[in-house]
């Protein structure tokens, strides 16, 4: 009887094992259209990349600040042990290039003075993402300047060399970009690919009623009107066409 129980359990375990699927579903890809491409989506909406780059610069500056502060603390302790006066210690630390705030002030001034680089950063779709017209003299527009200051790597002389090569130098967080389509882009009628065929171009544009509803502010999330359409974008004109029935 005991053996029978054992065998039954083994058989049961075998049946359960045989019937279960070993496929592991990928939670990141299963909600996306099958032909979704991160790089295409990023090119259609370069601002997604812009903010990613800005966040990267910010994070990197935090690391630089931390490592400088650590070094500074070490040297400071050493100098204090040798009995130097507090102001001499502070002065030496700045001269040794260990004071983050001093470096930051100097570096930001240099960044703002380099107009040629600023113009390039301003009009680059993945960086400033501003129309060329607004980028003739970025220093003239305080809002733009404030935005562009976020691209300054502290303690790096040639920021533009890194930024212009950002597809290599700054890692692309593809999950963050693709998931934006799920949580925001799709419901707000963002296209996910370029229109490539006649059939694509034959699709209708966005429903103006939904567009207007989305443009108006709503006070209750329940009242939000999601766009059920899935769109492609015409590369030349930027016009959207619905591709789902």
């Amino acid at each position, binding site marked *: 009887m005991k053996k029978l129980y054992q065998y039954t359990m083994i058989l049961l375990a075998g049946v359960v094992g045989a019937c279960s699927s070993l496929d592991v579903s990928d939670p990141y890809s299963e909600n996306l259209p099958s032909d979704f491409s991160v790089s295409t989506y990023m090119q259609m909406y370069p*601002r997604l990349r812009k*903010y990613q780059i800005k966040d990267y610069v910010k*994070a990197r500056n935090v690391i630089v600040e931390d490592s400088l502060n650590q070094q500074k603390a070490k040297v400071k302790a*050493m100098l204090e042990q*040798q009995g130097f006066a507090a102001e001499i210690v502070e002065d030496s630390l700045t001269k040794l290039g260990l004071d983050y705030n001093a470096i930051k002030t100097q570096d930001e001034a240099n960044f703002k003075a380099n107009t040629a680089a600023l113009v390039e950063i301003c009009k680059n779709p993945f960086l400033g*993402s501003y129309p060329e017209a607004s980028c003739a003299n970025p220093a003239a527009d305080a809002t733009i300047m404030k935005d562009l200051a976020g691209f300054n790597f502290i303690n790096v002389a040639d920021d533009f060399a890194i930024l212009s090569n950002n597809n290599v130098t700054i890692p692309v967080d593809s999950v*963050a970009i693709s998931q934006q389509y799920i949580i925001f882009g799709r419901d707000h009628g963002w296209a996910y690919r370029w229109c490539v065929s006649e059939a694509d171009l034959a699709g209708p544009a966005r429903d103006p009623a939904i567009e207007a509803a989305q443009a108006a502010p709503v006070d209750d999330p329940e009242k939000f009107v999601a766009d059920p359409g899935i769109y492609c974008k015409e590369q030349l004109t930027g016009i959207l066409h619905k591709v789902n029935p």
Partner: protein
Amino acid sequence: MNFNMNMRKFLLTSAVAFSTAAAFAADNQGEVVTQQKSLLEKLDSLNAAVLGLKINGTAKAGVLASFSSSDQYAKESPTQENQAFTDVNLRVTARPSSETMIDVQLRLHKDWQSAYDENNNPVIGHWFSYDGTILNKHVDFNLGYMRVGYTPLTVFTPQTEILQEPEIFSEKRREALEKRNLDTTSRRLLQGLNVMYHSGSLGGGVVDNVTAQLTGARIRNNAKKVDQVFFDFDFTDRYMLGARAGIDAYGAHLGLNFVNLFDRKYSSRSKAIDNSDTVFYDHNRVISVDLAFDSKKVLPDLPVTFGLNGEVAFSKWDVNYDYMGKKFKSSYKIAEERYTEDGKSKRFVYIKNDGTLSTALLNNDTIDVSGQSFYASLFVKGGINDIDFKVDAGYLKTDKDFWSEMASSPVYQGRSVILNANALYGTPTDSLLLATFGASSLENLYFNVYNSTTLQATNLMTVGSTNALSDNSESANLYARLNNNYKNGHFYRNGYTGTIAKRMELDPLMELDPSVGLALPLGLATPNRKGVIVKADVNWADKVFFNARMNMLTEADVVVDYALDPTTQTMVPVMGENKFTEFAVGVGADIGAIAALDRQILVQGSFSLGKENANLKRTATRIVAGVTADVWGPIAFLAGFQQYEKKFDNGYGIYGENESGLPVKVASVTKATEQLLLAGVRVKIAPLSYLSVQYGMLKNELEYNAFGADGTPLLNAEGAPEPPKKLSISKNVIMADVTVNF
């Protein structure tokens, strides 16, 4: 010790057997004593195979007084140190059958210097093993302590070789080694399991032997009271797995050897890593093929035999470390941004990586190198009339990145102060010199101190906690703690160690004390060497001995000079080859045998010189002389003299710390001169019992240039460099002991 004693017995037996054979060949009837001795030895070896329990060992009662003097000692420095002890080593062997044996070695050490404090005295066990030859003598095994050797590039211990070392010295060295369970063979002292299979003759005698060996050993770990999880991980845990296989046929041997050494990493920790901790994981693998040939098997009729030994090895060495560092931790949130399009402000939502810097356990790879090593040597040996000779010439080439830990780490690591360790020095520089450059190499080679001390309130090594005598006030616990019934600590002062050093731990030791060898401090596996090695040994009827050694080696990519860089106007290093030239000659003569006297009067001497032409520009010179003579009846006279000089033409920098804890050069050692004279009599008071009285004189002189607080050489009032300073210590040692072997 007992193992060694038996080895010596074995060597003696084979030597006696050899000489009896020679005696029969010469039809010499005057060797009755030798024959009798041989018979006794045979009986003894029969006795060794008797089943059951057997106890033998040695007992030694002795005193040692060392008087030291130095102009550099502080006024209040103690100058005398005494040892008085009875040391009994017991070897307990139990043979449940003729195939296996349990071997336990115990030490009873009575330190008469602290005898009254000591009360009763515990027994220290220092060797535990279970060994055997099983399965019809096809499988040998060792469990517990063991000594294992593979090949010179895989598992091997590079040993100090001093040509014609007089017995008074070699006996002292053997004793110091034995205190650490070490011996003078090239096998490694390990703990674990070793199994070796040998087939014996196969295929109708075509194949002489097929062997296979597996070794698993724990190289190091830290004592813990309890494991918190199964088989705790500890920062010190290190293991070795070795395997080899070989085949012998037609006098040739072909073998494949593999060694893998690793720190345990992927398991739970017994202790969390601290913010200031850096834990290194070192992984070393070596695979080698060895080939040997001896013509004796195929050409037995030739008066000489010749052959070759060779090995090719490939190594991988990688190191990574765990540390607590700052890590940028990503955390995502949904953020809103605005932009202006067609004059209208628009908003959109995106996923923002809003991480923070936080402290985390990080791992970093520092070293990952692989290298190759190769050596091959040809030998010729034979006997013409009474003259036996062996000449060996080889070539070796080892990459800079080759590393074989099990074959490299020498057992001699020296540098400690053995005698008069309580001396105090007048200046901090002198103390630092002794602590970093190290004390006399000869003292470390030949002397050791073993004592036991009762651990009590006044000498327990407590750090950072209050003990009975802290704060100059008498603790209420003082008298309660002073008497200690059984906590007896055994302490060594010994220049030898069985610990196998990792490469990163070994580097500074390599250049300092080339007692193992200037050119090959880590034996044949020394990284970054290329060149030839020649050895010759001649023995004329055990009357006259001659040995010669010569090494011509180069080390690549070494700083050979500094030159002015015309563009930057700074001195830049010039890389080049460092050439090592080493030679040694030794001569010994048994005047007793030559003059056909019935006693041994062995006179020995050797000279060796090692030089390098770059880097520190070291020169090491060693002069050895000695006499071992049976004077009359049971009395033997033993004497030895040795002078050892190390010169550092480019100076060896000694670094101290300045007030802020930064390293600063305080001195540069240019020369170390050492002399050791040992002389004494040994009286055989009964069979296997000896009384020995010895006098020793040890001189150690260090010459160095002192540096100022700014790390530049000191100048006198005229601005000229100060003359070199000297640190000179001399020690007079008196030793007397009675040794009984049983």
